[in-house]
């Protein structure tokens, strides 16, 4: 019989004490759902041998309000986020670790729901959570649950992808419509609620990346435009590579609903977060073939070439507007907040 009352129980300080309550929580929620050989060994670490190649490691803390949103939750997000950060080096992600900070009083049922979603995302991605940690903080000192995941992966020989490799003339590709995640989150945020069919695009992109590098091993940069959106990612890449970037507004895939929500709230879709999209910079001669390959993958069906890299010592990102003018697409200043004017 279960020792945890998952249906009605709450996280208590004892669940983080390291004693029997911790062990029960780990067994009945984490081990049960993540269920893999390495984790099941019950050690404080996971031991594995690594294939040849160069290894990458990436870590990402996940804090989000609300915890559950259309198209995902903090659990699936914490898997996709780190798998993607590892994959953006061209790597095959191998293993994940997960650290949970739980707030006293957090419903066990919600925790289980999150862990089930996380386990599903990890199994679907083929990247198991092999080690983890749980701590409990007093009520009022956390926001329900924070999840930090770390991922390791192996980059195949011959692949060299980095944010500082963009060259003038290169093409810039985005893998699909932008702003879906951020708008889905906003639509379910307290005080802002609006109806929409938009769901978070949260997804693991490593299989798309694998197909991309198979077709175009010369890819120079890959990055997922999460916080700060497409605009911020393009500015980061321009700065790292010391180049300018020129994009066309009419080429950027954006759903009508995302545009509508942005008009309503006074936001710019270029700055809205994505969790299942990537930006790729590739030599122009490879762009056509690469785009065709991306279109065959479910996560790249709406991929589009949105512009090109140019020479610019000022490292500016400039957009040709649909209207026919040009405007600078700057770094995000402060937070993107709904405005009235």
């Amino acid at each position, binding site marked *: 019989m279960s020792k945890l009352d998952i249906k009605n129980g709450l996280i208590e300080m004892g669940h983080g004490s390291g004693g029997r309550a911790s062990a029960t929580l780990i067994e009945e929620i984490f081990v049960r759902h993540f269920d893999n050989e390495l984790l099941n060994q019950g050690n404080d670490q996971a031991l594995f041998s690594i294939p040849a190649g160069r290894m990458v490691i990436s870590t990402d803390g996940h804090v989000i309000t609300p915890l559950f949103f259309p198209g995902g939750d903090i659990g699936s997000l914490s898997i996709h986020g780190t798998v993607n950060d590892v994959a953006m080096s061209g790597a095959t992600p191998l293993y994940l670790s997960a650290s949970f900070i739980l707030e006293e009083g957090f419903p066990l049922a919600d925790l289980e729901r999150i862990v089930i979603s996380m386990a599903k995302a990890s199994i679907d991605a083929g990247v198991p959570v092999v080690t983890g940690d749980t701590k409990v903080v007093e009520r009022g000192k956390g926001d329900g649950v924070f999840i930090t995941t770390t991922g390791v992966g192996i980059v195949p020989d011959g692949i060299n992808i980095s944010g500082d490799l963009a060259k003038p003339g290169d093409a810039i590709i985005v893998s699909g419509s932008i702003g879906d995640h951020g708008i889905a989150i906003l639509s379910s945020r307290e005080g802002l609620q609006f109806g929409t069919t938009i769901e978070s695009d949260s997804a693991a992109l490593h299989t798309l990346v694998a197909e991309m590098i198979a077709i175009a091993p010369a890819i120079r940069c890959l990055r997922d435009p999460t916080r700060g959106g497409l605009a911020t990612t393009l500015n980061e890449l321009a700065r790292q590579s010391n180049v300018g970037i020129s994009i066309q507004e009419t080429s950027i895939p954006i759903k009508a609903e995302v545009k509508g929500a942005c008009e309503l709230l006074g936001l710019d879709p270029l700055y809205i977060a994505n969790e299942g999209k990537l930006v790729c910079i590739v030599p122009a001669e490879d762009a056509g073939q690469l785009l065709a390959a991306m279109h065959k993958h479910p996560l790249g069906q709406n991929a589009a070439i949105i512009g090109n890299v140019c020479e610019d010592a000022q490292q500016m990102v400039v957009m040709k507007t649909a209207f026919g003018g040009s405007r600078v697409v700057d770094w995000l200043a402060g937070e993107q907040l709904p405005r*009235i004017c």
Partner: protein
Amino acid sequence: MKFVDEYRDGDVAQLLARLIRQEAKPDRNYRLMEFCGGHTHAIFRFGIVDLMPDNVRFIHGPGCPVCVLPAGRIEAAIKLVEENDVILCTYADLMRVPAGKRDSLQKAKARGGDIRMVYSATDALAIAQANREKQVVFFAIGFETTTPPTAAVLKIANAMQLTNFSVFCNHVETPPAMMHILSAGEAKIDGILGPSHVSTIIGSQAYADCCDKYRVPLVIAGFEPLDVIQSVLMLVRQINAGEASVENQYTRAVSKGGNKKAQSLMAEVFEQRPLFEWRGLGVLPESAVQIRSEFADFDAEKRFGMQAIATADIKGCICPAVLRGMNNPDECKLFGTACTPEDPKGACMVSSEGACAAYYSYGRYRAAESKA
């Protein structure tokens, strides 16, 4: 998007711009003040400046509610939240606006002030209903567009006899500010692009006195780029003909008399405030509203005995002159160096509608273009 996309057709813009170039007389200047930040934003966002001949110039006006709110009012709100156990609700636009001493609502929130961003005044009311044990204050800002919603909420609060809700009223009025700029005569203005959404409420007739008294033409212009360009053409034609009347380009939403229901609601809840300080323009008589005595219980200034706080201008910042149409943002010593959207010193750098923020993005691009 219906009623939006149709007014963003770049081909029509070129045709309208061609007419402007044909009709603008090369031997004279057309200095057009766009009163609203919304127009400033559209002019820059869509690159309308590039379509204009050199002698048609835009002068930026004070029509950004965030930009004209004096730092002292923000300081007063910060003091309120830090000295009383209140929840302060505000439109997000205000969060980063500099108060005195490098402070802002955002910083006060980080220090522990219970400051919440709301999308609508009705959300502030909902917060008051959900937190009956706390006093909830709504930091109301805006021109006549945003005043009726505040009035509506005050009426509801009154009907509900909600004892823990009040409004810190900072609503200002457009025609007095326009009159002030014209009467000061500091900025040479040949024509005015009139407010669009303010005018839906107050109507096009509200500017008749301005035009008559100062012999300046005014065209009420929608915020979409074709609205703006068409309105410029209408202004050029009036100026050429030596006329000075109110014309309405934005007829799809603005009538002569405006929204009477909204007007009567405002009149029921608010009355003229004898004096109000505007950032940049100074203290202007009868240029703002205050809550009527019938609704005094909901007036945060009265309930909490809020006092006016005087703040010194930020050294070197020329926002006041920019707001009066006297200077361009790039003539400020702080512009782009000490004052950026990331670390704004003046209010005009905060709001995306502020002239400085618009210049920061586009001015840099245009400077780079002209170098190349």
